[in-house]
């Protein structure tokens, strides 16, 4: 009995020791990119995987730096178009998987070809325009295209994660797409150490190829991605120094910054970089929203500056009328002359005049206009319940529209209903920003606005939620996708912008921020306007935009 007791006590203490606490000065706590308990580390379903699955564990051939509009070779050593339809890629030497096996050109070929075999892999449509991949030598590949889509290809290069052939080649299609991949083996600077419902712990890969090849050293021993469920908790954790790197939308940053020395990108408003264009999609099939001039009148009636101040405390900025993100890769194509000619600004008097001219007048003196036939109409504008900044915003928009006599009411359905309305085109006016985010190509923005295939689809996920239909747009989009000459791109962008501003199926309003607040209690040298070494966001898909480089540059205090 005594022996048993001793054994038990010993066991208990050993177990107690195993409940380890991470050394704070070597651990980086990150929040804002994980919203459900970790359940998936599959690089083939990255939108569903824990943030960092691609970027920290798996890597892409290139990174894209939106601050300088530059593709940076990552797993690739270099890449260029050697012929109009041939992209030549050189792979770095000495790359290694986390299980010690070398990462070779065969893995790259496999990553692409598995999508030819399994046509349900998200990037498999690439094979509609990619003809073949030729091996030139042990480090060089030629991608031969039947229909080179330069813009889309650039985006693929920073999105497709190279996977190890020796692990994935044995899997069936369902295993590839429905596997959780709980022990991911990638090539990146971190691997998955453990996870629980509220966190995912990445551990430094000491054998990472980049330490030698790039001279980059991942500073934190562990990167802990936290799932924080409310903004209040996130604020508290930042203040206490329990959260280092926050990509939450936190209200009250101006106050917090003054009181607690919170680090942000800009020292002054708007504090944040722009991450995407928020605006309203309008159902162009619903009368009277189907009248382009009516939509233009709406654009003149909305006071976005009021939203910026009221809902966002100046943490965002009013967008240009075209909604083109103020980042170098997008702004180099900004068609100023077109915007000057066809743009809009807040001017309720003009809006009223336009509505009068259309014949929308308030005949029965109830404060709202009737249509030219004298019929009353009522419209709704919606955003998900609980998205407080957006709720304030659409209330403000409804208020502005009512001020010029358009009867609009704000509605706040649950997110699932909102999503169904959005993707199914079952709304009058809807606030959204899902498809207008930062990317390597301005083509993606216009796709978010105009996505031509949305017209026919029962549910459309890729943009153009108001189902705007215009054959010219489709041709221009195709042309833009297949251009790599700046002059040609500028031309297509100018034409698309003109159509957007004339017809306004989407009214751009403000630039939603790349929310970034950091605590300097444990880690310092965060990127900022004065030290703009990289894009400071740890959301899924943003590691490849430079988020990963934060880890090489921060310093332990």
């Amino acid at each position, binding site marked *: 009995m005594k022996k048993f007791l001793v054994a038990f006590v010993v066991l208990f203490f050993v*177990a107690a020791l195993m409940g380890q606490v991470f050394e704070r000065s070597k651990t980086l706590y990150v929040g804002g990119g994980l919203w459900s308990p970790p359940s998936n580390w599959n690089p083939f379903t990255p*939108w569903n995987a824990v943030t960092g699955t691609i970027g920290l564990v798996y890597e892409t051939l290139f990174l894209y730096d939106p601050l300088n509009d530059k593709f940076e070779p990552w797993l690739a050593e270099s890449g260029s178009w050697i012929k109009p339809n041939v992209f030549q890629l050189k792979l770095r030497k000495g790359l290694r998987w986390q299980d010690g096996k070398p990462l070779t050109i065969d893995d790259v070929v496999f990553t692409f070809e598995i999508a030819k075999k399994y046509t349900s892999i998200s990037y498999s449509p690439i094979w509609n325009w990619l003809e073949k991949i030729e091996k030139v030598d042990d480090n060089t590949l030629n991608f031969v295209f039947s229909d080179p889509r330069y813009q889309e290809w650039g985006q693929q290069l920073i999105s497709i994660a190279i996977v190890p052939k020796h692990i994935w080649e044995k899997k069936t299609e369902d295993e590839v797409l429905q596997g*959780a991949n709980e022990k991911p083996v990638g090539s990146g600077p971190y691997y998955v150490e453990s996870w629980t419902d509220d966190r995912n712990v990445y551990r430094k890969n000491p054998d990472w190829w980049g330490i030698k090849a790039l001279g980059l050293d991942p500073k934190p021993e562990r990167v802990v991605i936290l799932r924080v469920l409310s903004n209040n908790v996130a604020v508290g954790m930042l203040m206490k120094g329990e959260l280092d790197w926050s990509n939450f939308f936190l209200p009250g940053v101006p106050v917090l910054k003054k009181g607690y020395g919170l680090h942000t990108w800009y020292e002054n408003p708007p504090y944040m970089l722009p991450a995407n264009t928020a605006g309203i999609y309008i159902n162009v099939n619903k009368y009277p929203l189907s009248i382009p001039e009516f939509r233009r009148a709406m654009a003149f009636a909305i006071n976005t500056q009021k939203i910026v101040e009221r809902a966002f405390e100046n943490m965002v900025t009013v967008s240009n009328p075209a909604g083109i993100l103020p980042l170098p890769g997008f702004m180099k194509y900004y068609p100023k002359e077109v915007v000057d000619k066809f743009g809009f600004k807040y001017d309720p008097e003009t809006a009223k005049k336009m509505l009068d001219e259309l014949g929308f007048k308030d005949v029965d003196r109830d404060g709202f206009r009737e249509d030219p036939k004298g019929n009353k109409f009522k419209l709704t504008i919606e955003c998900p319940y609980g998205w407080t900044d957006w709720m304030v915003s659409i209330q403000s928009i409804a208020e502005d529209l009512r001020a010029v006599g358009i009867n609009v009411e704000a509605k706040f359905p649950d997110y699932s209903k909102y*999503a*169904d309305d959005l993707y199914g085109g079952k709304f009058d006016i809807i606030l959204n920003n899902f498809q207008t985010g930062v990317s390597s190509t301005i083509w993606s923005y216009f796709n978010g606005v105009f996505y031509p295939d949305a017209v026919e689809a029962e549910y459309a996920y890729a943009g153009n939620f108001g189902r705007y239909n215009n054959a010219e747009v489709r041709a221009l989009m195709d042309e833009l996708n297949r251009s790599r000459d700046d002059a040609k791109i500028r031309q297509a962008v100018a034409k698309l912008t003109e159509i957007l501003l004339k017809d306004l199926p989407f009214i751009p309003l403000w630039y939603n921020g790349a929310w970034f607040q950091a605590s300097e209690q444990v880690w310092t040298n965060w990127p900022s306007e004065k030290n703009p070494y990289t894009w400071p966001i740890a959301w899924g898909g943003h590691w490849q935009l430079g988020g990963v480089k934060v880890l090489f540059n921060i310093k332990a205090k």
Partner: protein
Amino acid sequence: MRKYLTKKAIIYLITFFFAVTIDWVIPRFMPGNPIHFLISRFATLPESVKVIQSYFTQAFGLDKPLHEQYLNFWRALLKGDFGISIYLYPQPVAKVIARSLPYTLIVLLPAALLSFAVGNRLGAFVARKRKLDNFALPIFYTLTAAPYFWFGILLAWLLGVVFRLFPIAGAYSFAMTPSFSWRFVVNFLYHWVLPFSSLFLVMLGGWAIGMRNMIIYELEANYSRYLESLGASQSLIRRYAYRNAILPQVTGLAIQLGTVVAGSLTTEIVFSYPGIGYILMQGILNQDYFLIQGCFLFIILGVLIANFLIDIFYVIIDPRIRKSYTGEV
């Protein structure tokens, strides 16, 4: 005995069939489509989204006509396949439930059993003791009339927010990882107190009142009076009364089980306690048909099985039932 059990079993099977059917129908009445959640915010190339949409619609069988989906659901169910969660894609629902179940059980079981035991004793104790009764009865009534979640909110507000004695959310502190260490166990128990108390106290009130009334009734019964006239001690009489009074309480336990489980679900939501109720709530918010189905199914099964066990137990503790079915009476 056999007749009794077969009869009960048939009733339970029919109940199971209808409950499961309703369970399948309800999530599908919600507006929207679970695929949205899977691809929502998937800001990537439009062609990719199309591919993914059609793959997942097929993979989840949502492209089939409804009656076929219903049959497939039964087919999978009989194989023990609950499907794959969408909220926690691609974890199997069974695994998600298995992971949250301990949290539910660790609150629900002690609360249900302890409240039954303590409540009955307490009720029996106060019965026929005028002063104590006058004082205790209003308290019991208040407790039993309170909805579980409301009482939970009240406790969270009073002990968590006003007096700051207990944490109000989660199963353990945010700064900890589950492990078998003193610190963790203490922390876990600390978070367990409020959800447990809100269930325990509400149930306690109900049992105590029931028992008090039954005891008063039994003490008036002829056998009690006869015992009394024979000169038996008060404690002996009360012991006999208690044995008789407990029978309706056990029936009550069976009837109460459904509400108790529902109560524990809402309590979990109040305290963000990661059990079945909490995960069910997440499933509903994220339109996760399979997770919603799985959770409800689990609850249905749990309640039916528990009821069945109580039925059997009843036969054991009440010879009259057993004998009425075997024809001895």
